[in-house]
């Protein structure tokens, strides 16, 4: 029945084993389903329902509650600009509008190539380094409208396989909420959080 890859099925087993009850694995399995197809499909949600031994309607009730589960085609790079209070105070709206303008993609939409989606989001916990932007949930702090435009150009040109927070902070960031100390190698490979099987490690060749 399953249309998931062998590796994904193996990971689903591991995830379910981390919970006392199968239903608790709905949220992580929804991320797995997104990683398989780039966004959540009816088939993906039906698969999650089978794994968790609940109905597809119950899975949909969860998937539709949370903003990070995208049920429509999302670009390879999801640019999320924070426009909550602290970022707004320091020009977050201008960064968001610059990103919209440079990409030609308005809030909540995706470009024709399926490369870039743009959204403005509520607080992402980077208020001390406002304004903040995330690409596939990898953070950049202290972004200016100009740097926001450069970020869009860079994503279009470089098309990085792996989106890495330290690299982007270096290229497009400014002041930070706190000292990040040492850089890390991991990054995201799609519009979902790079955690567990969903991220990967940058090799030297990528950087």
């Amino acid at each position: 029945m399953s249309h998931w890859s062998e590796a994904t099925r193996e990971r689903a087993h591991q995830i379910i084993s981390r919970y006392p009850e199968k239903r608790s694995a709905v949220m992580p399995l929804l991320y797995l389903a997104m990683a398989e197809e780039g966004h959540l499909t009816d088939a993906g949600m039906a698969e999650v329902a089978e794994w968790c031994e609940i109905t597809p309607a119950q899975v949909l009730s969860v998937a539709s509650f949370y903003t990070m589960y995208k049920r429509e085609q999302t670009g390879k790079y999801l640019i999320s600009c924070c426009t909550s209070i602290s970022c707004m105070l320091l020009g977050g709206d201008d960064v968001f509008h610059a990103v919209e303008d440079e990409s030609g993609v308005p809030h909540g939409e995706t470009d024709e190539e399926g490369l870039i989606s743009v959204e403005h989001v509520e607080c992402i916990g980077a208020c001390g380094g406002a304004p903040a932007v995330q690409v596939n949930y990898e953070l950049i702090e202290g972004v200016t409208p100009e740097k926001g435009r450069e970020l869009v150009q860079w994503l279009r040109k470089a098309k990085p396989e792996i989106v890495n927070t330290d690299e982007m902070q270096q290229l497009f960031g400014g002041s930070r909420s706190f000292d990040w100390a040492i850089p890390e190698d991991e990054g995201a490979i799609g519009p979902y959080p790079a955690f567990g099987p969903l991220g990967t490690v940058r090799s030297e060749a990528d950087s």
Partner: protein
Amino acid sequence: MTTPLLVTKRMTEHRSDSHTIDRYESTGGYVEAKRALGMTRDDLVEEVKSSGLLGRGGAAFSAGLKWSFLAPARPSYLVVNADESEPGTFKDRQLLERDPHQMVEGIIITAVANEAHHAFIYIRGEYAKPARRVQRALDEAYAKGYLGKGIFGSGYDLEVTVHLGAGAYICGEETALINSLEGLRGEPRLKPPYFPAAKGLYMKPTIVNNVETVSNLPHILAMGPDEYSKISDSADTGTFMMSLSGHVNDPGNYELPHGITWRDLIYDIGGGIRDGKELKTWIPGGASAPWFVPDQHIDLEITKEATAGAGSMLGSGAVIVMDEDTCMVRAAERIVRFFSHESCGQCTPCREGTTWMEMILRRIEVGQGREVDLDLLVDVSDGISIDLAWPPKMTTICPLGPSAVSPIIALRDYFRDEVQEHVSNRGCWFPGARVSPHPTAVADRPQPVSIGASSERGSGGRPPDATGRSSDQVASHDDRARRSSDAVSTEGDRVEETP
């Protein structure tokens, strides 16, 4: 102000490797976890109770007392709340990224004290990097036998699972978090009967503690509760992480003693207001907290009591500072928009009220407000939070709705003239006047691929509804739909410019 650093000491002194298990152990780490394994539940609860440690997630409830409420049924569970989403707050992110083992040791202590053998760390989905750091720390601890079967060679088993959220602020509310962890929508449960300590995760006794709360535990055990309670020269004990943001010269996280004043925080620690501007107002404890103003509150002590006495709260320790050039209507709109977007929709006063408040604020900002609008805002607020009292008299299951009322209290009490001038002036005159990007309550998800669709949205609007609707008229689906096009239309020109 010479307070010892506790939870940020290691990351300050060992910048490059404070997150590794080697550094953690070489600086005294995991000693207290081992010691806790030899202590009884009663001893541990008593020790934490007498330290005076208050929960650092926002409610500031005695951590030891919370533990003492744990019902006798077993199994019991521990959930660490790392769903930090309160606008202005970013302290847990630093603790998770820079010193995850400190939290893991706190988890072991808390689990032992509450006889839990399975702990969950609920990290918000947008915190991908903190989640990776925490998972790596857990892997290191498992590899050394500090987690898993028979931890530290004892007979005690402890499993820890990292659970990622998916972008819902409401999951920071402990019963919503538990629902989310059970694989349900993150809707808060009614208390009573669903107090987590009695009927929590899987209807079993459950302790939900914040990251910073748990991270304090190794220090309390190491120095002893007496020493810990002497750190601050105030009724509140220990240190307190404050996240400072907005128009200050030096934003950031600061670990501070209780009992300094707001003047100390904003002018000394925060370096004063940017560009030599005047301070206009600040939010003392995250977006949920009622605002403070300089002429009344600047010399108040930063303690739970003093803040509550002035009608606000320290909440999550997030201080958002606004200078003289900040439009109060826009700031209020932005905070109300947050709560409107994050309302789970269960309770009518919150779901409908926050939506209406957002609409009314937006029309005032763009110059379509009416003389009665401030009173209308207060009236709608009264429907969510009776008398706009603080602490709120609840009409809803959880405090999210009443939190949205906080900016309205500020507009009513301190900035009435500014609101009325927006009405008589037909709009905002502050620098950078512009309305919020599209309303989020109705547009939180990418639409199907179609760039051309934007021009349709841009041209479909009419002016924000300024007819005399009263607060008891409930917004219908049509209202919601219209609201979507209305708000977009206010910046329709710009939207249409995009290709």
